[in-house]
């Protein structure tokens, strides 16, 4: 049975059995698969999976950010184990039950008891719980009851495991969160509900030590922080100067982790503090990568989760918050999208420079920029040659200014193209013809043929440079010539 696997970063977000078609995906709550993205990378109605024969086709529902495959935006794509489509921060792929999907590598070992989310699972849970209640009074009853409970529980658990897949046949989507974090998340949720926000943060931070990149943990931590800010009075402001001085001393002593703790204390109270930001960079530069998780616990937000460059991701900076990372990724993607839009207007040095800058600021694997740069260069060379040919035709028709324009255009597109000689030749022709026009203008003027004279002088203005003595005469004449 085919199954849709949704990944966020390297973590499986959920797996969905593809039983009912179509399946709508989007941010809106009415969708079959609701994907939430704080950065609004997901549209309300983003995409739809349709079955076409044996294929599952992911179709873009004219979303703002589209569907991306191998760095290219596509209107639709046939999903498969080897075809990963990206929408917003999520990646979608199809995995067959028989074959272990690649995505499962990121999933910890099978959970002892999956968390059911559909009503289909509820009777088993309740029955198990009910059956497991020990009988009252005698010890014998306790023992018998215990054995009976184990037998009944096993009887229920075996079919549950066997029919786990078939449960979803009646449901379009079954959401299975990563099991190892469900406990801490549930605890944290309860603590948040009880307004014990600091305790919730501590619970999550403990789990984050083990799973530093888990998105769900990070999301709950964010909620806990919001709850802290809303429910609790602001903590006393730290002595900023003293904290920063201590941080400087610690950086001097190469104790970057401790310095970072001090700095974060200041930044928590004053995120815009420039000195703290500067010191944060110094501390980050001085600390090894392994020190980063230790400082994560003191941070306000989760650390960045790297997105591969092939999917538009960037290399996270040391101790970079995920929030900041996502902003950088989005900004870079905007630059990329802008370059792609510019490419539609044809090759230009600006386009090539834009691609080069993108590569410089990202990596050679960033989306398809390297291929696009090569394409732009190739197209540029071809277009430049075409412009030279057009210039030759225009020169033959004595449209010299247009010919020079084409040559300059060619040079702009491909600066290595030798066009100087042709430009100089045409400029010389312009001067010869311009002086001839000037002579004819003078002649016509003296015989009172002002219409003709004006025409010749207009040509003079087109052909001769302003430094030529006739240019001024022509300018004066054209300016005062009777219409």
């Amino acid at each position, binding site marked *: 049975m085919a199954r849709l696997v949704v990944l966020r970063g390297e973590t499986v977000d959920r797996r969905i059995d593809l039983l009912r078609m179509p399946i709508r995906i989007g941010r809106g709550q009415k969708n079959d698969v609701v994907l939430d993205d704080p950065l609004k990378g997901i549209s309300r109605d983003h995409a739809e999976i349709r079955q076409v024969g044996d294929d599952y086709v992911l179709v873009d529902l004219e979303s703002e950010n589209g569907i991306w495959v191998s760095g290219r935006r596509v209107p639709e794509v046939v999903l498969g184990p080897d075809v990963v489509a990206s929408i917003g921060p999520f990646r979608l792929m199809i995995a067959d039950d028989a074959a272990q999907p690649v995505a499962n590598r990121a999933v910890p070992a099978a959970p002892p008891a999956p968390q059911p989310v559909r009503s289909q699972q509820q009777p088993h849970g309740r029955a198990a719980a009910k059956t497991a209640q020990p009988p009252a009074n005698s010890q014998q009853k306790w023992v018998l009851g215990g054995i009976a409970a184990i037998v009944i529980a096993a009887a229920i658990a075996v079919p549950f495991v066997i029919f786990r897949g078939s449960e979803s046949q009646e449901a379009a989507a079954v959401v299975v969160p990563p099991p190892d974090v469900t406990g801490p998340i549930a605890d944290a949720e309860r603590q948040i509900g009880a307004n014990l926000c600091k305790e919730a943060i501590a619970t999550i931070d403990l789990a984050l030590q083990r799973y530093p990149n888990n998105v769900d943990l990070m999301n709950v931590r964010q909620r806990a922080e919001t709850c802290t800010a809303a429910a609790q009075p602001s903590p006393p402001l730290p002595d900023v100067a003293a904290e920063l001085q201590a941080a400087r001393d610690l950086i001097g002593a190469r104790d970057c982790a401790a310095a970072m703790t001090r700095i974060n204390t200041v930044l928590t109270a004053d995120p815009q503090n420039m000195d703290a930001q500067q010191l944060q960079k110094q501390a980050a530069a001085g600390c090894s990568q392994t020190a980063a998780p230790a400082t994560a616990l003191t941070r306000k937000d989760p650390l960045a989760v790297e997105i591969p460059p092939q999917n538009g991701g960037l290399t996270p900076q040391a101790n970079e918050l995920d929030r900041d990372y996502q902003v950088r990724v989005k900004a870079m993607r905007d630059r990329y999208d802008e370059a792609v839009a510019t490419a539609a207007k044809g090759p230009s040095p600006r386009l090539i420079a834009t691609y080069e800058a993108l590569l410089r600021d990202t990596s050679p694997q960033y989306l398809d920029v390297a291929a696009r740069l090569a394409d732009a260069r190739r197209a540029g060379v071809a277009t430049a040659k075409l412009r030279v040919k057009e210039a030759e035709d225009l020169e033959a028709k004595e449209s010299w200014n247009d010919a020079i324009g084409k040559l300059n255009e060619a040079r702009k597109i491909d600066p290595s193209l030798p066009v100087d000689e042709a430009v100089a030749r045409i400029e010389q022709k312009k001067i010869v013809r311009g002086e001839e026009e000037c*002579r*004819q203008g*003078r*002649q016509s003027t*003296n*015989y009172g043929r002002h219409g003709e004279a004006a025409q010749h002088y207009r040509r003079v203005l087109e052909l001769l440079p302003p430094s030529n003595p006739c240019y001024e*005469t022509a300018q004066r004449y054209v300016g005062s010539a009777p219409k």
Partner: protein
Amino acid sequence: MKTWLSTVCMVLAFDLVGALAQAPPASDPWIRKSSKPGDFRAGRLPWNSFSVELPEDWQLVPGFSTMLVTAAEKGRNNQPAAAIIIEHTQNTEPLNASDVDERLAALEADWVRQRDPAGENFEHQVKEFEGRRFLLVQYGRAGFNGRDHVVVYVMPAGKVMYRLICIAPEKQLAEKYQAIFAHVAATFKPAAAGSGG
């Protein structure tokens, strides 16, 4: 003896070829100095912007406006006589030798045709004499006694355009007047380009 004669003949033949090669090109009958320069005198004119030699026995008549002076042949018994009018006009844009070309000649011919609508058979040419380029426009028209032939020499000199308008009875043009007109035109020299008249 035969050898000696043939050598002499060969030398003479070479000399003849050499002499022919060095001979000046045939002069233009419309502009050349007369073989009888004594028949002309430098005109005593009140302008120093040009110089010219006019036929000695012709009478000078004052002009007006653009017409500076007229040199008229003294006719006998009311016989047809010739005249040369020296005219100058101001150029809006300065014209020099480099501006004298076929197009200017055509423009001039058009202009002359407008001034003398009775004229017929207009012709125009660009001429060069002693490094000076000028235009020649000629045409025929009815005269006092039979047809006249009009030859206009047009000589631009910067801001001034000089015209020598030469009129003669058509029948006597070739035998008498062409050489006179050619000498007057050959001796006409503006003092300096751009100077006014």
